[in-house]
Structure formats: C-alpha cells, structure tokens
C-alpha cells in the first residue's frame, strides 16, 4: 500500500465534505475489495474516509412496496435479516452466496454497488428492479446507474445513503460460481414485478450488468423453460478471461435463465 491518512467521520455529511475537499481522498466501506486494491498498489488515495463510524447506515426496513437498505449493511446482515427473508427471500439467498462468511461479515451493499465489479451480485439487483439509489446529492435510478465496467453514475464526492429496492411478485437468482473465488462467471436474476412485467438481469458476463431483452421477450409470450430453447445471446460484447470464454458465458445465460424459470414455476 502507498501511504495514506485515515479519517473516521461520525456523519455522512462530514464524510462527503472530506471527499469534496480532497479529490484524491477515497471512501472506505467494508474494504473487502478496496484493501486488496490498495495492497496491489492499484490505487493511491491521499486519505481513506472510513464510513464505518457513521450511525444508521446499516438499517433494513420495509418501506412502501419495497425494502430500504442502508449503504453500510453487510451481506451477512441482509442474508440473516428476518425482514428480508419474509419480504424478499431471494435477496437474502443472493446475499448468502456472496464470497465467503468472513467476506460477508465486512462487505457492504453500498460498497459492492459503488464499485460495480462486473462479477458483483448486488448491481444486478439494483439494475433489474430499477432500485432507487439515494445519495448525499439526490437520487439515481438503478436502470441508469451502471454506465460501464467499474463505473457508476456517482460523482467522486457523492456517497450512497441507502437503496430502495422494490420487492417483485416473484424472483429467482441463479449464480454460476467460480468454485474458488465464488465470484459469478455468470449470474441471472429473473423477476416478475408487481405490475406483471418479466425482467431478466445478467451479471458476470459483460463489462457491467445488463438486461437480456431477448430472454424477456421470449418469456413474455410463454413463461416456460422451452420458450428459451431458440434464444441465443451474442458473445461479441461479453467478457473473456482464464475462467471462461465469451462463448461459454453467452451459452450459460439462457441455461441459468431456464433454471430460474423452473424454480419460479415450482413455487
């Protein structure tokens, strides 16, 4: 790690001010991605602004037609939350599959979404359900939050307060995990919204999460696994690395979507 100063402000406003005052300062949430990044000297912040000392950022509550989840809520807390397990069990299930237990104890939903790793899981939720991202500067729509790999709509000194996640009528999450890292090679979140709309979000496959409109169209006419038999996904824009070729990732998307359909039909 390069040298940095450390600050642990007691309020979100103070944290935002520290970041606004120094463009080279960086916010620290759970640190499960950013500390490895620092260790590899891929970042050189002048100061770390640790958000862990700010009260009321790790709350989960029902609000209107959805869940309000504070930015510093850990994956472990989401997975174990009785509120989430009752209102949106698939979200608790999704959180329980992130990384490993120690990572889930520190890693946060706000950190995951603000980082927008192509293989991260929460961005798929925010995009697919068009969650509202409430920040220190206003609000963003989830459908318009992830312009590209490791990029978000956030300003450098803008901090996420909480997410409002609309609870769907039905949902299924399928994640094809790398057996060692537990990151998604490909993940699919299939939902039927309260308005009856079918949406299919994909993670791990492309530079950032995206909606698979071909799958949505096919399932709209017939909500059955066979409806996806002829559906192919263009591998041209997908990621290729030591773990999987782009063609393999393209192949996995309808495969996982079919598994989602089967699980939603079984319930």
């Amino acid at each position, binding site marked *: *790690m390069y*040298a*940095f*100063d*450390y*600050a*642990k402000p007691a309020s979100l406003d103070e944290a935002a001010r520290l970041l606004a005052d120094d463009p080279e300062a960086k916010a*620290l949430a759970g*640190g*499960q991605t950013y*500390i*490895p990044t*620092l*260790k*590899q000297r891929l970042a050189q912040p002048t100061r*770390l602004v*640790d958000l*862990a*000392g700010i009260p009321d950022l790790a709350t989960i509550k029902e609000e209107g037609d959805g869940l309000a989840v504070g930015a510093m809520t850990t994956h*472990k807390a989401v997975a174990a939350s009785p509120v989430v397990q009752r209102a949106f069990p698939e979200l608790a299930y999704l959180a329980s599959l992130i*990384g*490993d*237990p*120690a*990572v889930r*104890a*520190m890693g946060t939903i706000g950190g995951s979404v603000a980082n927008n790793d192509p293989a991260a899981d929460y961005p798929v939720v925010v995009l697919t359900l068009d969650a509202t991202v409430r920040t220190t500067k206003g609000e963003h729509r989830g459908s318009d939050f992830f312009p590209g790999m490791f990029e978000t709509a956030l300003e450098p000194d803008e901090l996420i307060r909480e997410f409002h996640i609309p609870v769907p009528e039905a949902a299924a999450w399928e994640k094809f995990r790398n057996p*060692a*890292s*537990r990151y998604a090679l490909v993940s699919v979140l299939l939902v039927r919204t309260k308005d009856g709309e079918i949406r299919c979000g994909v993670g791990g496959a492309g530079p950032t999460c995206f909606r698979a409109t071909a799958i949505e169209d096919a399932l709209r006419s017939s909500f059955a696994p066979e409806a996806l038999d002829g559906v192919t996904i263009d591998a041209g824009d997908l990621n290729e690395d030591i773990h999987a070729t782009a063609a393999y990732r393209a192949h996995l998307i309808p495969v996982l979507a079919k598994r989602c359909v089967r699980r939603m039909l079984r319930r």
Partner: protein
Amino acid sequence: MTNPTPGASRREFLSTAASAPLVAGAAAGVLGGEARAQTTTGAAMAGGQVLVTLKVNGQTHRLSLDPRVTLVDALREHLGLTGTKVGCNHGQCGACTVHKDGVRVLSCLTLAVAAEGSEITTIEGLADGDELHPMQAAFVQHDAYQCGYCTPGQILSAVACVKEGHAGSDAEIREYMSGNLCRCGAYVNIVAAINDAKTKMGA
C-alpha cells in the same frame, strides 16, 4: 533448532522477540498523549502514525501505527501474537481469520486502526488456561490438519460456523467453511472435527 535458553520453547523465544518493538510503540504513544486527548479514533500523530487502542483476547493494547498496518500485521508484528497466520494476504485463503466482536473476519482485509473499539479474539484467546477449547481439542483428536498453517484460521472459522448455526450437516459445514483453504487437503477430518465439537459446544 536448539532452544535459545534452556527450557524455553521456540514459540516463547519468537514471542519475546516480537514483543520488543511494542515497548518502543508504547513510548511513542506516551509522547503522543496530546493528540490522543483530542479525538478517540485514529488520532493523527507526527510522521503519519496513528494511536490505536486494540482489545485482543481481553487485554487492551495501545499502539502507534502507520494507518496502512492491517490487523493481522498489528497482531503478529506489534503484539507478538503469531498464532494468526498470513496466507495469501488478500482475502482468499482464510488463514488470517479472527473474531471481531464475535464475528469471523479476515484480519488481512481489516485495517488495525479500523478495529479500534472492537473485541478481537485470536487463536491464543480460545483456550481456557491449559484447557483447550472444544474445537481445538477436536482438531487434535481428528487429526484435522497436516502442516498446520491454515489451522488457526480454520479453528476460528469453525467456532463461528457452529455459533452461527451453520453446522447442521456436512454439506452446510463445507459451504460455510468455504472461505478457509487447506492445501494439505485435511477437509474430511476438519468436517469430522466440527461435527464432534459442535455437540461439545452445546450446539
């Protein structure tokens, strides 16, 4: 290796040697008393050091640290608690697992300064005097290791796994121990040890 002094173990020698810098750290802490009085956490001192109060295994330690020092390095290099191991040092292997306020975390991905105010438990803090924790005893009984390097992290993670209620079946144990790698491949015996210890832990 011969013992440095008759009757002293290699572990005790290493522990004593590692504790020496602690004296210097404590002295620097006294000099920084003014800074410490101003704020509670991460009080800045000259030379980029911060004063950090760590509670480890029931004991309170005051250290003067660079903010970059991770919890595992503070434990090993500054407090002489070398039971916690550095494996990959970036959150993939679990060798550095400790408990922070009773919850298992990776001490290589936790800054020491950010651990202020928390109760840290390491492998040195599990036993009750000379009596091993049931999980430690079960690891010995079931030969749940070969080289032993990952073992402190495995045991801390296993204790948490049982306390969380995630040791209900072999499959659940494997899933909830997936963050702790054992390159010797002692997994079968680790699962057996956890199954054994969970009853003795009252789970």
